[in-house]
């Protein structure tokens, strides 16, 4: 166990990592709100044994205002919101909790160890001309089921480097398209060119050790075998931060990240 490691990515970001011993697990298992990534089904298979990393993600300063979206051109989408919808660049929870942060084990998982992709697909819903979830993770080979809940055309353009880019469209409500990703990549950008404000980000991982934070800013990565791991937190506006965590046995450790808003 290495005690404390600081790793600062980008001079303007403040980072604190606290790794204490066993702590009564806050277990902020994010409720299945549409904004959080469904926990990959595969992770439960390996969680029987192994350690857990939990944490909470916050930011300091004032969050930038999310631009309002003028949906007047798509009446069907506009009707789904009581007030003017906004973009989801920085979604903050109570006490400066930061949602939509993708946290994953960047390195430390023994090479050669493979994890089967879960059979259940991750669902990406286009509803009200926004993506739900906005930031999420998926395993290599796991299905991404893209569905359209709007009666208008959406196209889903995946901008990827390690994976084959794709661009599919769904002109009517109820359409479903499934795609898979063949290589790990953090992050793949998804966008809709018909509605320029629609963006989603997805992390493709070869293992189930990842999570995305919900409105309360907390995450939990379970089932890690003993070892020393570099974990990284990614946010679309605030960049990335990394921390090193060593797991021995079935203990639970905490890794908190704090990003700085300007």
């Amino acid at each position, binding site marked *: 166990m290495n005690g404390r490691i600081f790793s600062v990515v980008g001079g303007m970001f403040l980072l604190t990592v606290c790794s204490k011993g066993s702590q009564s697990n806050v277990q902020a298992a994010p409720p299945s709100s549409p904004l959080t990534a469904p926990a990959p089904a595969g992770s439960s298979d390996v969680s029987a044994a192994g350690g857990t990393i939990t944490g909470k993600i916050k930011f300091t300063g004032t969050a930038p205002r999310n631009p309002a979206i003028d949906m007047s051109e798509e009446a069907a989408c506009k009707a789904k919101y009581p007030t003017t919808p906004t973009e989801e660049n920085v979604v903050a929870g109570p006490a400066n909790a930061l949602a939509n942060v993708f946290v994953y084990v960047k390195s430390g998982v023994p090479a050669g160890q493979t994890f089967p992709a879960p059979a259940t697909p991750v669902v990406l819903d286009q509803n009200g001309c926004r993506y739900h979830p906005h930031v999420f993770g998926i395993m290599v080979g796991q299905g991404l089921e893209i569905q359209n809940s709007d009666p208008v055309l959406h*196209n889903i353009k995946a901008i990827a480097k390690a994976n084959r*880019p794709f*661009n599919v469209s*769904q*002109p*009517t409500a109820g*359409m479903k398209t499934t795609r898979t990703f063949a290589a790990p990549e953090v992050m793949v950008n998804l966008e809709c060119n018909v509605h320029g404000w629609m963006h989603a980000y997805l992390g493709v991982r070869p293992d189930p050790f990842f999570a995305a934070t919900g409105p309360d800013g907390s995450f939990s990565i379970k089932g890690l075998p003993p070892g020393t791991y570099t974990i990284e937190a990614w946010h679309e506006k605030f960049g990335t931060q990394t921390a090193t965590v060593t797991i021995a046995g079935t203990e639970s450790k905490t890794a908190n990240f704090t990003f700085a808003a300007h």
Partner: protein
Amino acid sequence: MTSVAHARPEAHGDAQHAPMSFWRKYIFSTDHKIIGIQFLFVSLFFLLVGGLLAMQIRWQLGFPGTPMPGGGILPETMAVNRVILPEYYVQLVSMHGTFMVFFAIMPLLVGVYANFLIPLKIGAHDMAFPRINMASFWLALLAGLIMTASFFVPNGPIRSGWTNYAPLAARPDLSGVTVGQMLWCVSIVVLGLSSVLGSLNYITTVINHRAPGMTWFRMPLSVWALFITAILGVLALPVLQGAAIMLLFDNVLGTHFFDPVAGGQALLWQHLFWFFGHPEVYILILPAMGMVSDIIANGSRKPIFGYHSMVFAIIGIAFLGWIVWGHHMFMSGMNPTLGSTFMVSTLLIAVPSAIKVFNWLGTMWRGNLRFHVPMLNAIGFVSMFTIGGLSGIFMAATPVDIPLHDTQFIVAHIHYVLFGGSLFALFAAITYWYPKMFGRMMSERIGKVHFWLTFVFYNLTFFPMHIIGMGGQMRRIYDPTIYTFLKPQQPLNVFISYAAFALFAVQFLFAFNFLWSLKFGKKAPMNPWEDNGMEWSLPNPAPHGNWDRTPNVYRGPYEFSAPEAGDKDYLPQYTKLPTDRDPVPAPLPAGGH
């Protein structure tokens, strides 16, 4: 290559009078007539493919977003829940145009009839280069297969229209097409090679292999048209090939000929494409005009009215065809002064076109008209080509082009020229020379029913497109109903779709007639249409090598109802009257060396 491997046994086979194997005779043939027939079957197949794509386009435009019958067989990259996807719709319009222009109409007119008719009509034993001719066919088939293959590769075929405007076609990240775009380019390069080889062959044959007495101005207008078309082909296709290679490089090698982001020129593609593309339009209509001229003279039992001006009109159209390409680019941001120049040259094309139409009318004037199926289709051609030609004037006048450009109006125009024009001419030509190809006649009764139904449904399909185009419906849009200004005219789109389905269904009459008559058609007499052409001095079908001895030609091709014909109303080019002297054989070209 196969041609070499098979060429030697042929010599022995002929010497021993052994019957040629099926493969030698029908597959790896160097006989211009068999190659023409091969082109006929292959391009009729692609005509069917193009038609099937058109039906899907019409389904989507008539009933946007509703599940298409039979759509279940399409993969989810093309249709979800049997609903056509926008990307597949764009592929449909792109490939419909590609197949129809490059693999149906062009090979039907040029591949089939330049091959089949030129040697027969000028009294030659075969093409100047029979093996190059065979290579031309096999390259065309290869190109067609490559193009078809693009439906089965990841991301499917092209999505940028048959015109492949760059930078959309040059940037896989913007078009979403990867392999399909490369296959399009490769296929076009191969097809261009086929066309150039074929065209060189036609040009050489016409110049060097005319029978004694077949002077330039005794050539039938069909041969004139095919000859001029071949000259257009040999000059135009290489431009397209060059452009396709550049487009391929942009896609594969990372060059940026057409991508302004890295210093390329987006309009360069349009200039190259239309510099080929407009002569191509005349490649698609001149042979039709030529064959229709032959058939109208025959059906009217009269010489063609103003033969010489008909020849000069063909040459005039072909020449003007090289200086009008900019009229496809009036809205492109090209310098408006250039637009003025292209407008004037474009409007001038109306002059030779008018000469042709009025001369056909003049031919029918005071004739003794026989309404056989080819004649009916030829008259259909004249009346429909007239509409197609006149509707072109709207878009040639640049200010009027502004609201009409890239709307359904241009779709109506191109179909009046290519379906009403070229395809009616092909129905006429196929029926007319069927006995020469297969020794049997197509059914006259089915042919007439087919003509009338096609004529009616064709007009019901394409005429209303002018109106929805005037209303502003843009080309290649997947769902017009999302526009408030287009919604009121959606019933007309539905109407067009029904008419189009009927039009497609009627074509099975033709297919049935064509196939059924191969085996059960009436045996053709020697000269079933009582025509003057050299080809009718031969048995039906004509043997390999055509004539045993090179025939003599005694007069022009249109001596119908000539006084010296006596009680008959036609006087073939090969008939020697007591007053005729044998022509002096021309010295063999290049034979002295």
